Structure formats: C-alpha cells, structure tokens
C-alpha cells in the first residue's frame, strides 16, 4: 500500500449538503490517496451515499450543495470539483472518477447491450470507436472475470446473474481508466459467496491500477476486508476517523464500540447482544450538542448541549467525542467495559419433535408452447427433511433462490407442497385443508422479512394484532391480550390505536412478532426477520426473539442467509443449496467442522470477515 507520503488524490473539506432544513451531510472532510481505500461506515440514513453523490455532483434535485470544497488532484493539478462547469465536470465523471452502485439489477440500462453501455464510456473518455472500442470492452469484461466475454458484449442485463451484472458494472466504471473509484454498497445486493468474489476483484483491480477508492458500506466485514482508513458517519457527520488496524483494535467513539458490540457472533452465544436504544435521528433534526448523545450509554449532561470537537488519539485515530477531550481528564474512562446483559440459560431439549418435515417437495410447473402446456417443473424445494424440537432454534441457511423461503411457506401450507409430509405436533398438515387446518394455524406462525410490507398500512396496530385471534375464533379479552402482547415485545399498550407508518422498521418488526404471538404459537418461522434492519436494530430484535423463546418456550425455524446471525442464535443448522439440504446438524458441528463443499465456501466467504456481517 502506498504510504501516507503520497499526495492525496481527493481532498474533501467541510462538505455540506442541504435538503430543506436538514443537513444529510454536514461538514464532512477527508482525503483519499492513490491506491488507498477509505471506507465510510454507518447505518442507513447517516449520509454516506449522499456524500458520494455530492462528490460526483449527482445529488437528487431536492438536495443542494451548501458548502465546502472538493479538490480532485490529478497529474499534479488540482481541480475544484464544486466550481467546475457542468461540461468540465462531465469529463471527470466516468473519466477521472468512476462509480459503481448498490443495485446492479436496476443500475444498468435494461434495453441496451452490455457492450454498448461500456463502449459509450470508451467513446466519451478514451475516444475509442468501432472495433477498437469493442476489443477494449471485451478486455475490460475479461479483466473483471466475466466468463465468455465476447458473447456477453451482445447480451442484455437481464441475461446476466446479479454477480455478473455487478462485474459488468465495474467494467463500465473502469472503462474510463479512473484514478478514483467510488463504490456505493457494491456488494449489499449480492449473495454471500458472490460478495466475497466481487470484493476480491475490486481489491485486485485497485492494486493493479493503483486506484484510490471511496467505499460506502454499512458492513463491518466489508470494511475489515477492504479499507485502509475508516470514517464512521453518524447523522450526517464523520464522528471517527482511523486507520483500519487501529479502528478494529480499539474503536474509540461510543457509537463505533456499540456497532461492534451489537454484532451477533458465536463468542456471544448465550449472552444478550448489546444494543443501541432508539434510532438514527431523522434528516431534518436540528442538532444541539453531540448527535449521538440521546442514544449514548455513557453520555453526561454536557453531551446534549456542547457539540464535541475532534480529538486526536494515538496512531492517527481521531474522534469527535467529549470523552476524549484532554481538557476533561476525570471523565469516566472507556476502559470500563460496556455493560453486557445477563446470561441466558441454555434451552432444554424436549423429548419428541414439534415439527417433522419429511421429504418435502415443492415444484412449480414450466409452461411452454402454443397451448401453454406444462413441459417440466422447477424444483424449488426438492426433498427436504428435518426435525425441530420445542424450544429450540433451527437455522435454515442458504443463498437467495435456494428454496429456503419456499420451505417456510410450504410448512404453513401457504404454498401447497407437491409431495412429502409436514407433521406439526404429530398431526399431518399436508392432508388437511380449509377449516381442518385452522386449529393448527394457531400453533405455527410466521414473521416476515420486510417490516414495511408486513403490516397493512390502513389498519391500526391493535386491529393488526387482533386479526389472528379473530380468524382463529379467540374472541375473549382481546383488548387485554393486545396490551399484554405489546408490552411483551417492548412497546407501550397505548400504541394499539396508532397506524404502522408512525413506527420505525425495528418497531414494526416487534409488532409483527406480537401479531404472530397473539395466537400462542409453539413454532415461529422467522423469514429473514432482521435482514432489512440496521445492525443496532437487528441486535434488539434478536434479543427480543431469544427472550421470548426463554419465556414462552418457542421453537424457531430461522430462515436466513446471514451466517453471523446463525452462528449466534442457532442450536441446529441446516444448509440449503438448490432446493436440497446439503448439510444438517448441531450448530457447533456444522459451523465448526463443515463437511459439504458448499457449506465451506459459505463459511469461508462469511468468516474471512471475522467480525461477521450485518
């Protein structure tokens, strides 16, 4: 890596973006040197992406640059990006600075071939046309490791898989030979194993081209793998800047420390995760004092009135927190460990299994030809068997499209299984239908992934929670039960009269859990219940789930792609791949000594990011 001796490539000073009265980016300053990666880390809504867009001057119409400078130093001369004309700026975009985005499936033009989208950049910034452009485009595709590059040139984005699309996107960003690459959550939309490959690719390309890189991410694992320097953002401000080793060895700001503590991992198994109460403040908040103070466990009165300044620490680390103010020597030192919550007792293993799934198959027909005859089947789930004891957690792990969600729905008979047996408490579900299924619906419930789609926006919280009770004919003491449930999931009873839009993602997930609990189920199928949430909120929900398991003896079928969560929460693990379970066993066995190739690659992808992923 190039040392700090090299002159910076990009110098951002006091960058401020305004939307209405809010400042999503407030006085942000940093530098990036050639060959070096700065990672901006933070939860959603902290202003990371906005910072990147501001550097490129691609802000949405509502947002406005209201201060600061951005200097792009190329070949010895400095270009103040914020005062260039639009035409000059265009030669920088895609030329000097390339950018890749989070969602490869929407970020490529769907009706233009991959080749043409790359050639467009080559013509603009390299003056290449015709065969020369095509040759160069092919080389670029080859350099990002896209197989059969020649053929891909004429293909359209919909013909490529997610990972391939992101590679094409990277090729496009590299076509102008940029000195700086801005990568906005480049792997968030990808599967775990693909994530690792794309990150590796970015790293290799960076080394080859000595590119500077501004990496926007919320994922500590990605940061650890990629960054040279780390900038932590919170509510529009940078609050901590440090070299990577320093940051991971000794995160300074209470927020950074909490981010680490909130990560689920095996080592914390049996403990409650540390959580950050509350949520990221909304954009238009008028801040007084430290922005993190309302959520900070070590805040003292001055924090909420005085805005902290930067305090340098050893090893190039800088923190914006009063605790590190040398002028306040007698503050509570950070050497005192952050409080961890009490131990939980390990769940007892029940004698007979609550849920038995035998050779479950779900096939979807493929229709083709003039008459739309069924010519074959897609086996979404192809012979899955497992057992789940009462009070235990079985994690069903796999990548998107492996059929794990379909398994969950087939168990609840939301999708009719093609074959196999599902026995809940000894009763065969596949044979039942309609009214006969009703009593069993009370025993197994589901919590969904997207907290914004899982609550009907037109109904009050109370009505939402009561729906299951009404449908299953439990009509006594409904109001009391709703109040009790809300308190059980950590909300207030008077919230029953409100509507979903008044709640944050984490709160909505609590409501969804309360709805499932309303009918006193013994089994809850959790379908990626935390993957739409930020790390700190994820920790709250996981804690809640564990607490409820303790108290109510629930069994969880925990469907997820997140190995870190599995590691933390699961008693048993089943790994799914292409509709089959390829490995199943106790969490210790499967995660500790994986047998199947796929499990190994899944684990290696996830576990090279030792601290886990969010």
């Amino acid at each position, binding site marked *: 890596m190039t040392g700090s001796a090299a002159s910076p490539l990009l110098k951002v000073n006091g960058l401020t973006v305004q939307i209405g009265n809010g400042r999503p980016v407030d006085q942000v300053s940093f530098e990036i040197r050639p060959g070096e990666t700065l990672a901006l880390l933070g939860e959603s809504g902290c202003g990371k992406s906005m910072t990147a867009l501001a550097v490129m001057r691609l802000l949405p119409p509502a947002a406005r640059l209201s201060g600061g400078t951005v200097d792009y130093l190329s070949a010895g001369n400095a270009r103040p990006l914020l005062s260039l004309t639009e035409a000059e700026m265009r030669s920088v975009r895609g030329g000097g600075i390339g950018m890749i985005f989070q969602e490869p499936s929407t970020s490529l033009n769907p009706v233009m071939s991959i080749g043409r989208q790359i050639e467009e950049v080559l013509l603009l910034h390299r003056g290449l046309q015709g065969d020369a452009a095509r040759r160069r485009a092919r080389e670029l595709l080859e350099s990002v490791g896209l197989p059969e590059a020649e053929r891909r040139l004429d293909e359209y984005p919909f013909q490529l898989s997610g990972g391939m699309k992101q590679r094409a996107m990277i090729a496009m960003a590299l076509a102008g030979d940029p000195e700086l690459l801005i990568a906005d959550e480049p792997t968030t939309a990808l599967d775990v194993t693909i994530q690792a490959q794309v990150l590796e690719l970015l790293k290799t390309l960076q080394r080859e081209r000595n590119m500077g890189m501004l990496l926007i991410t919320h994922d500590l694992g990605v940061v650890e793998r990629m960054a040279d320097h780390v900038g932590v953002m919170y509510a529009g401000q940078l609050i901590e800047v440090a070299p990577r080793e320093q940051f991971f060895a000794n995160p300074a700001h209470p927020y950074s420390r909490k981010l680490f503590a909130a990560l689920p991992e095996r080592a914390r198994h049996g403990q409650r995760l540390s959580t950050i109460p509350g949520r990221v403040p909304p954009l238009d908040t008028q801040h007084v004092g430290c922005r993190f103070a309302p959520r900070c466990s070590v805040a003292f009165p001055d924090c909420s009135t005085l805005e902290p300044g930067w305090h340098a620490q050893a090893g190039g680390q800088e923190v914006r927190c009063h605790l590190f103010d040398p002028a306040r020597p007698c503050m509570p030192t950070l050497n005192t460990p952050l409080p961890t919550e009490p131990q939980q007792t390990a769940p007892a293993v029940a004698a007979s299994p609550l849920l038995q799934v035998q050779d479950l198959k779900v096939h979807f027909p493929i229709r083709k030809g003039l008459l739309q005859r069924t010519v074959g089947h897609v086996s979404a789930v192809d012979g899955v068997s497992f057992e789940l004891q009462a009070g235990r957690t079985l994690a069903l792990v796999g990548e998107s499209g492996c059929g794990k969600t379909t398994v969950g729905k087939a168990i609840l008979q939301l999708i009719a299984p093609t074959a196999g047996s599902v026995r809940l408490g000894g009763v065969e579900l596949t044979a039942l239908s309609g009214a006969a299924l009703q009593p069993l619906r009370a025993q197994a*419930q589901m919590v969904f992934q997207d907290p914004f789609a899982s609550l*009907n*926006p037109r109904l009050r919280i109370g009505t939402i929670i009561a729906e299951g009770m009404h449908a299953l004919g439990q009509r006594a003491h409904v109001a009391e039960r709703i109040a009790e449930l809300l308190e059980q999931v950590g909300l207030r009873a008077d919230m029953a009269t409100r509507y979903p*839009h008044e709640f944050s993602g984490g709160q909505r997930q609590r409501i969804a859990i309360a709805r499932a609990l309303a009918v006193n189920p013994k089994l809850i199928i959790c379908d990626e219940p935390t993957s739409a949430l930020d790390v700190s909120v994820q920790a709250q929900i996981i804690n809640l789930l564990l607490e409820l398991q303790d108290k109510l003896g629930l069994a969880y079928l925990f469907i997820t792609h997140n190995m870190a969560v599995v590691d933390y929460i699961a008693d048993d693990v089943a790994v799914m791949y292409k509709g089959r379970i390829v490995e199943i066993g106790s969490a210790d066995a499967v995660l500790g000594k994986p047998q199947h190739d796929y499990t190994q690659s899944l684990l290696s992808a996830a576990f090279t990011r030792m601290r886990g992923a969010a």
Partner: protein
Amino acid sequence: MMPVLLWSDALFFLLLAICLGGIVWARRSPQLAASWRMVGGSRAGVAAATVLLFFVAIALLDSMHYRERLPQQPGESVQYSVEVLSALDALMKTQRTQTEKTYSAPLATHLYAKESRADGQGRDFPRLKFGGKHLEDAEDRGADVVQHALIGLAAGLALWAGLYAVIRRWLRPRAQWFAWDALLWAMAAMLLTGGVLIALMPHYHVLGTDKVGQDVLYLTLKSIRTALLIGTLTTLSMLPAALFLGILAGYKGGWVDDLIQYLYTVLNSIPGVLLIAASILMMQVVIDTHPEWFSTAAERADARLLSLCIIMGVTSWTGLCRLLRAETLKLRELEFVQAAQAFGVSSWAIMARHILPNVMHIVMISVVMDFSGLVLAEAVLSYVGIGVDPTTISFGTMINMARMELAREPMVWWSLIAAFCFMFVLVLAANLFADAVRDAFDPRGRTS
C-alpha cells in the same frame, strides 16, 4: 307543487352523500387525512376545488325538481303541470320565460335581425321584449350596464371582504397548512363575476339569446348539471363492477382471472364510440317503444341520460379494472396478505380488509382523472347525436345548435363563446384538481 325525484337526482344526491361520508371517514384515518391535507396545501388544487364547488352548487340547485300545480278548476282534482322544473329554473324564472324572437347579442336592447317595422316603414332592428326594456332610450344602455355592473361588483366585493375577515380571524389560525390565499383568489374571481352577472340578469340577456330567443346564460347554467352528472355518474355506475372484478381477478388468478380478462378485452376491443352509438341507438328504440314507462318528458330525457352514463361506464370501466387487477397482483404478494393467509383468514375477508383499502387511492385518482374526459366526451357524443336527449340542455347540444353560427353573416359568436368559457373553466378546474389529488395520493405519479 309536487317534488319530483328523478333517478339522476337520486344518484347525484347519493354521490354527494358518499362524498360527505368519505370526508368523515377520511378524518378518522390518518393516511387519508394526510393525503387530503396535501391537496388542501396545493394552491392549484384549492383554487380548482373552489371553482368546482360553485359548479356543484349550481348543479345541486338544478337537481331539486318539482312539478308546478296547475290552476285548479272548481270541482276538479289537483292537477300538476307535465313540465318538470328545478330550483334553478325557479330562480331564473325571468330568463326561462322571457324569451325573445331570435338572436340578440349579449346585453343588447335590440334584436340581431332586421324585421319589418310595425308601421310598415321599411326594416329595422326591433327592440327586445325583455332585454333593456326598462330603458326609455336605448342610448342610455352603456351607462345603465356600467351602473348595474358596479352594484354587482360592490356586492361581490362586500361578500368577499366578509369571507376574508372570517378566514383571517378564525379559519386561518386553525389550519395553517391550508392554501387559504388560493381559496380567496378563486372566491374573489367567482364572487365578482357572479355579482356582475346577477346584478345584470334582471334587466338584460347577459350572454345574449340563441336562434329561438332563449337566454344563453340560462342554457349554459343548465348545461352544468348535465356535464357534472355525466362526469361523475358514469364512473360511479361501473365502479362496483370494476372494483369487484379487478380485485377478484388479481387475487384469485387462474381461470377466474382468465375469464375476467377475456371479458374486458372483448368489451375493450369494440371501439368506444361505436359501442356507445350502437347501445344508444338500441336504448332509444327501447325508450321509444315503451312510452308508458315515463310520465313526463323530463323522465324520458333522464332515462336517456342515465343510459348514456351506464353505456359510457361500460366502455370505460375496463381501464380501471385492469389497473386494479395489476395493483392487486402486487398487493397479493405483500407480506401482510401472507400473514393473514397464515392465520387462515378467508379470501373474501382478505380482499375486503387488506386489498380493498389499499387500492382505494387508485379508484379515487381514476374517478377525478376521468371526470374531465367524460365531460369533453359528452359534448362530442351529443354533437354527433348519440349523447343526451336532444331536449336535455347540455354543452354538446348547445354547440350542436350553434355550430353553423360562426359562418353566418353577421357572425353570431356568443352561444359558442359562452359554452366554450363555461366548459373550459369547468374542465380546467377538474384537471387541476385531479392533478392535485393524484399528486397527493399516488407517490409514484409525482411529476417533479
């Protein structure tokens, strides 16, 4: 006097009741209230709504029908006139009854065509029977018109000032978010225009008279009810079917979906105008062959109006049905629907509780968006002869009567201009209001 409730009146009142009910309901639901607040905060929306309210008020007056009691002969039972009148007719009795011989220009004192003088001394423009008859000398007309207009302006201004005071003192402080200034501007425009018209009405044909001497202002005001009915009842008449079938097709899928899609593709594939033409011709035959169904001409015209609404509804519901089906397809996959399914809630309950409320914004948008198009369509259809009954006063029939007038020498322009202005203001207001509603209810459609 015998009150008469025409079918269209009943439906119009029902519609108003639904609107009022909707307001009460919206106040209880925060999302709806928030969306309506956005409409209330939009200047164009508020101004348009204010103008529309005036039109609705006129249509409402024109929907309270009655039959007058005929002078009773001794010994006979009570007889009622066969003519059905409305409250608006009663208010504008002079305009309705004081007809001239033929064309006269706006505010004229003389007829537009020369006639042989009574004394046989050549041809001249005779004085009007009604317009300016209070004037000794027709030369005084200018001053007289100005004087009346000023009185009208003053009255309008006084009313407006009162309204302004009320809003400033009581209403504005309670609802800062509302675009009161737009309301006030629109009110100023309407009150001042209205004041002048009302002040001049007792003495002149303000907008002139048509070929058979009818007051053009009266005809234009009567057209408003027809336009509003066509614009609203058409959508209303097919709304239940579109809602039911659209949601059913989207939620159930399979053969139900195929069948419903087939149904609306078939209906859609017949060109709208031709389907309307064919149906109206057929309807006319039915009406003509069953004179015994209708006791007055008004009822017959009303039947034709309603059948026009229903037929136009049949040709236009397919679009809404398709939209609802598409939206339901999306909603069906949402997790709150699956959560309900996991509880074993029945399909019908899911459609009623989870799907229906979440597609109502589409219904709302399509009702207001369709309105202006339907008003315009009525004019064209009536012009072609497949619209409302020729005896029903509407913008279309007015234009149909006046279409050759621009080609006359000297040109007669006031009927067309009057129809044009009123229709333009109505449709423009409807379009602006529809835009405000769509912006508020459909986040995706927001244009900037």
